[in-house]
């Protein structure tokens, strides 16, 4: 066994050992940088989409014109979205008074700002949810978006 071969084996072994450490570290990179959400569109496409949507005038594709209550005690009620804020709650002064007893007096509001509708929670007891996420700030909504307050589900339509 020549000296050179042994040196190559020695360095090779150290290299492989460090390679293992690198692979172990890369296997746990999710802990360091977080998990990438699945099926994320390519960032370029995303930016283009965003630009296109910003260009769209009022009333164009994606902007809802009516809010329907699709679940809960008040199913069937609806309200036109013409730009003025819409409030939901059990209180009689709300735009849509609800009979749902899990809904607060002033529960949630739809607000129009710069060609975009936003839903926001008004400090309700049981919270307002989009998907499974409880709202903590204004969240943009589009046609076919749904949000839930208590047992009531509101769907926005064009």
């Amino acid at each position, binding site marked *: 066994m020549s000296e050179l071969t042994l040196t190559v084996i*020695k360095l090779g072994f150290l290299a492989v050992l460090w390679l293992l450490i690198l*692979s172990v570290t890369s296997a746990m990179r999710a802990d360091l940088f977080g998990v990438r959400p699945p099926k994320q569109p390519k960032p370029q496409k995303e930016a283009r989409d965003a630009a296109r949507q910003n260009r769209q005038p009022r009333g164009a594709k994606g902007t809802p014109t009516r809010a329907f209550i699709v679940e809960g005690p008040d199913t069937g009620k609806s309200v036109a979205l013409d730009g003025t804020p819409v409030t939901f709650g059990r209180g009689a002064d709300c735009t849509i008074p609800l009979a749902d007893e899990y809904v607060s007096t002033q529960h949630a509001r739809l607000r129009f700002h710069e060609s975009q509708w936003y839903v926001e929670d008004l400090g309700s007891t049981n919270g307002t949810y989009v998907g499974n996420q409880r709202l903590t700030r204004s969240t943009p909504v589009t046609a076919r978006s749904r949000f839930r307050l208590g047992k009531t589900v509101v769907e926005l339509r064009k």
Partner: protein
Amino acid sequence: MSLDRARARTEPPAPETVTPRRGRGTELVLLIFAIGIATFAYVSVDLGALGRVPPNALAYLGGLSAATAVAHVVIRLRAPYADPVILPIVVTLCGLGLAMIHRLDLADGTTRASTQLTWMAIGVTLFVGVLLFVRDHRVLSRLPYLAGLAGLLLLVLPLLPIIGHSIRGARIWINVGGMTFQPGEAAKIILIIAFAAYLVQTRDALALAGRRFLGVDLPRARDLGPILLVWLGALGILVVQNDLGPSVLLFGIFVLMIYVATERISWIILGLLLILAGGFAANAVVSHVAERIDFWMDPFIDPQGQVAQSLYGLAYGGLLGTGLGQGRPELTPIAESDFIGSALGEELGLTGLIAIILLYALLASRGLRAGLLLRDPFGKLLAAGLAAGFFLQVFIVLGGVTRLIPLTGLTTPFLSLGGSSLVMNWVLVALLIRLSDAARRPAPPSATSSSTTDTAVTQVVRIR
């Protein structure tokens, strides 16, 4: 924003939780890598020392692969969400230890490597046993006092007349039917479990009730009493047995776990002060300790001694090492046990030794990570205790070998020759795997999680 829109359109029910990856595939790839490294090490030992490929290389590869495969399959079946990097790190360390023991075998003309491989098989068996029988780590927290008592009993066993057995001045062995075993290794794990279970019950009292003295929050005696008793008992027994390493380790684990439980930095300060005071006292009283301190201050008073030879070996190895099989690690007395760190440092150099220490650090960090993710306080404490204790052991023994701190005899986990240590460290890893599985397992799915009317996530509060 547009992402939200896209998601709202394409996948309307979009549950916001990302299902965690189990990582079993990653684990398999890393395991194959680890076995490759272990075999590489084994073959290059023979190439370096004898200039030939060992005749039993394939048998070695087969034995290692079989043991690893069993562990991997059991994880797939019983702990599918376990951390994927724990087992590969352990297999790599075991492989490096086996290679180095084999290398010392070649120098000394012994066959300890095959014994060690047998012990590894037993370790894997116990690993499997723990994963099969401990389905939920919380069952371990049921009997804290009994666990503490059991730990103490295990520590006392070697002092009993018939089964007790003394090797090289340390009376830490028991001899049952011709087999020797160090019950202290098992006691360490059982005491960690007992500490964790006990601290979960009393941590609030430990952290909040009590008097403040010199900026340190002292807990009430009745809260601290039982655990102090266990700790003093353990230390007393270890001092009587003339075995320093485990007593320092146990003390360190005790302090770290109280710190984790109470979040008071004062415990660390108190612990360091106590260990300094204890060190000075022991230095004055126990000759054995004074000797260790002397060797620490000046190892070359005995040029043939362990520490001196270890330092010569590390210096001979230098940055890149002599290459496996080409150094003289056998010159260090008992290199295969406490000093395997210096033997590896000599043949793999600083580069290799750092890699080994990093492997330990990664393993400990995975344990702590599991502790962070776990949802129950007992699991958190147990994971932190096991991981911190494990890393503390590595620090104490490698620090001693490299003359950073006075030498106290401890095994290097997974590397050192010695069945009890190897087997019990496999048990410790099984517990870590169980804990990390519990930590990474997604919360049980709510009844109808995909619908917008998911009542399961609504914290319904009736207002009227």
